[in-house]
């Protein structure tokens, strides 16, 4: 069998790869390097001073509150992933199996909601979660008393906003995985005597893993950068990393600190993904045996 040798001297290959490589270099690698370079400088009287020292990194590693916020951000992101997947999976399953007749209409509605401006959606939640909002009005009419819910300006409020904004990602990735599953495989499981539950856990769930992982990764990464929800719905009760970085860049005009915290967040995100990928890979290998 002849194997195509892909050489970097192949002009067609170079021409194909070059545009993407240039874009990545210009808009990802160089800014990242610049961010790293910036983190080794200092500011004096709100002006950048090219000092090349470890002052900022010493501050980052010596002040526990930065790590409190980073840990909170990762914890919130993980909780958000779990909630999003728990909501998205049944919904995607229903879309792919039970609601096929209305599939297109439902997807359009979801896309409309998804494309609605994030600011508008987040501020909309204030009208729902406020002490005198829609949720409390409904609960009061159900006899649960006035102001039964106090979710606005709490971490729970932040989480509701994050889940609402991000649940659509796993919904679609899981749906795509489920829609591609060969129905005959499930029927074969039934024919072999598997119950519905066993067929689901042994056929449907494993085959939907790619979409599930993909959705989870998307939610996790986007959650790490959640900015609007903690600011608007959280009411400063539990600031997350993005707000810490904004404050450092804007309010404190400490660009090196902002750059260092940005790198910390990127590294935390990358390590978390690498760790979860390793765990999943081990799980897949074990399942394959």
């Amino acid at each position: 069998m002849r194997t195509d040798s892909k050489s970097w001297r192949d002009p067609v290959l170079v021409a194909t790869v070059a545009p993407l490589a240039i874009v990545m270099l210009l808009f990802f690698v160089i800014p990242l390097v610049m961010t790293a370079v910036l983190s080794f400088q200092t500011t004096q009287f709100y002006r950048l001073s090219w000092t090349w020292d470890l002052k900022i990194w010493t501050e980052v590693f010596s002040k526990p509150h930065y790590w409190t916020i980073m840990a909170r951000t990762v914890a919130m992101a993980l909780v958000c992933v779990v909630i999003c997947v728990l909501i998205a999976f049944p919904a995607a399953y229903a879309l792919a199996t039970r609601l096929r007749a209305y599939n297109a209409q439902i997807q359009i509605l979801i896309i409309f909601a998804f494309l609605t401006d994030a600011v508008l959606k987040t501020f909309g939640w204030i009208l729902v979660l406020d002490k005198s909002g829609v949720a409390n009005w409904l609960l009061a009419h159900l006899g649960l008393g006035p102001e039964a819910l106090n979710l606005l300006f709490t971490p729970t409020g932040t989480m509701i906003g994050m889940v609402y904004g991000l649940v659509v990602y796993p919904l679609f990735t899981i749906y795509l995985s489920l829609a591609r599953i060969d129905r005959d495989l499930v029927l074969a499981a039934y024919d072999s005597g598997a119950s519905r539950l066993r067929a689901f856990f042994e056929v449907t769930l494993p085959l939907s893993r790619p979409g599930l992982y993909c959705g989870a990764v998307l939610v996790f990464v986007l959650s790490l950068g959640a900015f609007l929800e903690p600011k608007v719905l959280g009411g400063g009760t539990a600031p997350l990393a993005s707000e810490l970085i904004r404050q450092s860049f804007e309010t404190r005009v400490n660009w090196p600190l902002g750059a260092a915290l940005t790198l910390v967040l990127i590294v935390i995100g990358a390590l978390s993904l690498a760790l979860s990928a390793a765990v999943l890979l081990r799980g897949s290998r074990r399942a394959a045996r």
Partner: protein
Amino acid sequence: MTKETADMARTGVDRRAVLKGMGGLGLAAAGAGIFGMPRSASAAESLNYMCWEGYNAPTILEPFQKQKDVSISVDLITDSAGGFAKLAAGAAKDFDLVSSDSPWIARMGPAGICRYIDDKDFAEQYAEFYPQFRAPFAPLQFEGKATGLPTRWGWVGPTVNTKFDKLETWSSYAPVFDAAYKDKICLLDWGDWPIMPLALYAGVDPYVPLDQAALDEVRKVLRAAFKNTRAIVADLAIAQKGLIDGSFRALIGGGTYATSSLRMKGHDYIQSIVPEPKNGLKQGIIWMEATGLIENGRDSKVAADFLKYIVSPEVAKQLSITEATCNLVPNAKAEALFSDAEKKALQMDYMWTAWDNSHFHTVAPNIDDMLAIWQEELAAR
């Protein structure tokens, strides 16, 4: 100082919105340059203007553009410190004018970002100002030279809904720490604005160099305030909504910037006051915005003309009452142009009482320490 979310609420600017708009903006920038399309391709001159929202109102810019045959491109700032940093990092060469908070404008002269103005060239404008703002106007002076002219001002004190609370209750910041007000206070996350009054309440003058003991006092007072506070919000609309419906009994750190637009819309029961001096220390803060001429080597005469224009009585009145916020202006002649309702909304009858009981807001020597404390205490909440 950060008034970002007043703008965010109006313009819908946030990280995601920015990302979404990037594609469109990229195309627009490619076709029209960083600062967008000029007003008219045939304009004789162009000005690049960095300013807070309100200064960019078409009713303000268009008459000047027509009159001087000039096109003005605007770059809105959402944070005074951020605007200063941007100019200091090299963007100054791209701009001709800047309107920002006065402590930052005052720093731009000595930093070489703004050119000094000769007060004599603006004698006519100064003559129209209230005596408190006339030349030599100390807050904008450095070694006898002035950086820019004052354009808008107001005060920072408790903003109170008098339907729920008597004004006398807020003759001190004590309710911020009172258990009876737990979860009824809103702090505005506007940079140093909420820190200063609380420091003053703690008996610390934040405008002088502070030792560790004083900074520890600031930490204690912020910690106590956070413990009793329901929300620390940056968004003006959320803060105003809470104040109106009573879920917040008072806003701390916004002052007239958070009040006047509500009063203009008929909510005249909302008032910003300045607490009584405590142990001889004034408890209020006077904030002011100023407009400066940027040192870009062009020495633009039309930029200087714009500076005269923006403080003229008619334009000052327009600048005072904008869609987003309503503020006082230093031009005394402009006062005659306001209706009684507008004067009442701006609390003009109270403005000199507030002035007399306040410190003039400047960049505090230990501001970074105080902002770091704010960040640390917020993280520990």
